[in-house]
């Protein structure tokens, strides 16, 4: 299919150009950056974040926002580890049940979040923020602050075994991303997320049950948070309350940097992939080029502003909140 190279078509690719630009920049400063081994490292740090950001992408597509991920991840990670260890400690035995178990927990937490938001008519920002506190508290209550170790070599092979230079984790995350892509593009629910984001009252007038859709969106997000939790545990072999730390700001920043609009209806999971990579490339690149650590927060901030600035189509925005 040939697409005309209008500004509009070009605009869609801006986040990708930003990513490529960053890679070139860091490579110019330190050629080591451009290596398969380093890309594998970036892939490892990106995998959990990608899952979480993908989850919240669905919510943001609907024009809502979800700030509960840190709590949800903590609960899922901790319960996943407990289940795995209780069921024999290995994925080869009954332990594999911990994976669907964790996903189910993510879904339940997402459902609770969505129901509070929809049924009590509390804006998602506040509902999910509150529920995030509850999640963190819950995981703290479960662990009493302890860390749970997972030594199962099969589970840890997500990190240690490599195919084509990349760890299994990265491939698994990619597979999950494809599933997310499928949900987004080829299922009714996925398309209806866009409809709600494009105009909720119009969607309702067409007979969509938007309340139920919103709850579904939060459930899907919850499941992806659970996936993120599993990858985060696989990366460090430790499940704890802090497993969820920092995911909130990082994932939402990634989504926006990737070009998905916070007002809903535009963008998607591929944008999120690019956004996650941009954020992680910056994080990795700053260390690789040896930027003093006290500058890193500031430089990250500047680069994020620049990336969002470049990838927003300002003509279509009347005003921005």
């Amino acid at each position, binding site marked *: 299919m040939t697409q005309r190279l209008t500004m509009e078509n070009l605009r869609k690719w801006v986040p990708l150009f930003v990513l490529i630009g960053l890679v070139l920049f860091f490579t110019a400063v330190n050629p080591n950056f451009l290596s398969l081994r380093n890309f594998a490292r970036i892939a490892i740090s990106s995998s959990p974040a990608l899952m979480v950001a993908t989850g919240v992408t669905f919510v943001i597509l609907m024009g809502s926002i979800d700030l509960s991920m840190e709590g949800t991840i903590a609960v899922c990670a901790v319960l996943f580890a407990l289940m795995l260890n209780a069921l024999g400690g290995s994925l080869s035995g009954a332990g594999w049940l911990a994976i669907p178990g964790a996903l189910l927990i993510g879904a339940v937490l997402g459902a609770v979040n969505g129901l509070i938001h929809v049924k009590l008519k509390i804006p998602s920002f506040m509902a999910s923020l509150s529920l995030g506190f509850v999640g963190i508290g819950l995981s703290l209550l479960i662990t009493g602050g*302890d860390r749970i170790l997972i030594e199962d070599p099969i589970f840890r092979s997500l990190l240690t075994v490599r195919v084509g230079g990349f760890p299994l984790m990265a491939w698994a995350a990619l597979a999950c991303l494809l599933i997310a892509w499928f949900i987004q593009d080829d299922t009714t629910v996925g398309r209806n997320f866009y409809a709600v984001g494009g105009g909720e009252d119009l969607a309702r007038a067409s007979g969509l049950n938007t309340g139920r859709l919103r709850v579904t969106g939060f459930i899907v997000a919850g499941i992806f948070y659970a996936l993120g939790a599993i990858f985060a545990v696989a990366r460090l072999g430790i499940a704890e309350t802090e497993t969820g730390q920092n995911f909130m700001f990082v994932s939402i920043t990634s989504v926006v940097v990737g070009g998905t609009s916070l007002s809903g209806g535009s963008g998607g999971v591929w944008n999120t992939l690019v956004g996650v990579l941009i954020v992680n490339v910056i994080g990795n690149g700053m260390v690789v080029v040896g930027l003093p650590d006290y500058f890193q927060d500031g430089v990250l901030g500047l680069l994020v502003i620049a990336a969002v600035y470049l990838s927003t189509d300002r003509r279509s925005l009347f005003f921005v909140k």
Partner: protein
Amino acid sequence: MSFIKNYIEHQTLNRRNLLLLSAWGLCGAAASSSLIGRQAAAATSPDPKICWSYRDRTNPFWNSIVAGGEAFVRSLGRQSGDLINLINGGSSEKSLSDIQSLLSRYGSGVALAVDPNDMPNCRPVVEAVSHAGAYVSTIWNKTDDLHPWDFGDNYVSHMTWSDVGPSEQTARVLFDAMGGKGGVVHLGGIASNNPAIERQQGFKNALKAYPNIQLLAIQAADWDTQKANQVMSGFLTRYGDAIKGVHCASDTMAYGVIEALRAEGIENMPVVSYDGNPQAIEMIAKGKLLATVFTNAYWAGGITASLAYYAATGAFKPSAEPREHREFYGPTAVITTKDAQEFKTKYIDTNPEYNWKDFWSLAKGPIRYKS
């Protein structure tokens, strides 16, 4: 659910009133209760409440502190649950206001053990406690110009750890394992935290004695496992095989570093850390980690609470004690592969029975200030 919705919609009509009512209610109640006299500050209390205020529960160090605190509480014949936990989550503001609330509830009948979270926060905490006539012992964070003896009995003691020496020792263990040559990186804690500064200093001191060890980079990873993991992967790209050893300012960061190495299939890189968490000691026993420093948080948790408690009951008079009993260093022990197993059975698998009245049994002498 619809009845809930109705209820809520009905409620919202009154939201303004509700807000105003709650505000007025507070004022009114305050006015009415102002008739009740203020409780007189007692000098000592026969049965003070015992409280630990600390950063968070998700860190093994603080978990050991709490375990020690609870052990002490049990030694008094109370339940573990009788220890009041105040978690500030890294917020000095919350730390202070929680302590204020506690003091306003129990008045002088409280014995507090506190990590004030940030050095500047120590003064207001101590001032609040002594104002209420209660007793406090602090650990870690205190500015140099603040001393227990300036507050009579109420500021019982301050314990901290001199990290420079032990950190230098672990660095030496590391450098020796590297054969005295090659590149090394250091991952530090939150840069402005005192332990982070001291542990980095110790590391630098050791470097002087090893001219062939090349310092590649120092970077803060904020005591955080995930961040350490990320920073280490960055280092691997930047320096590649030039890295021959890693010096971490805490066990939690070492876990992240080891996992980053593991992801690359690097199993034998020498790594040393600090804190002596059970998991770290186990790793030393297995040879995955080279050394750590045991700070005996369990004992510190118990003894800090004990000091405040016995001062509050009047069992001893802090102002009568010498200064080295008011400000002292906590115990440190470097643990290496040689003694890890023995150490594990002695300190980790079971906790030794301590005599909580022997306050200074493990203390390492008076605190020395730089200037």
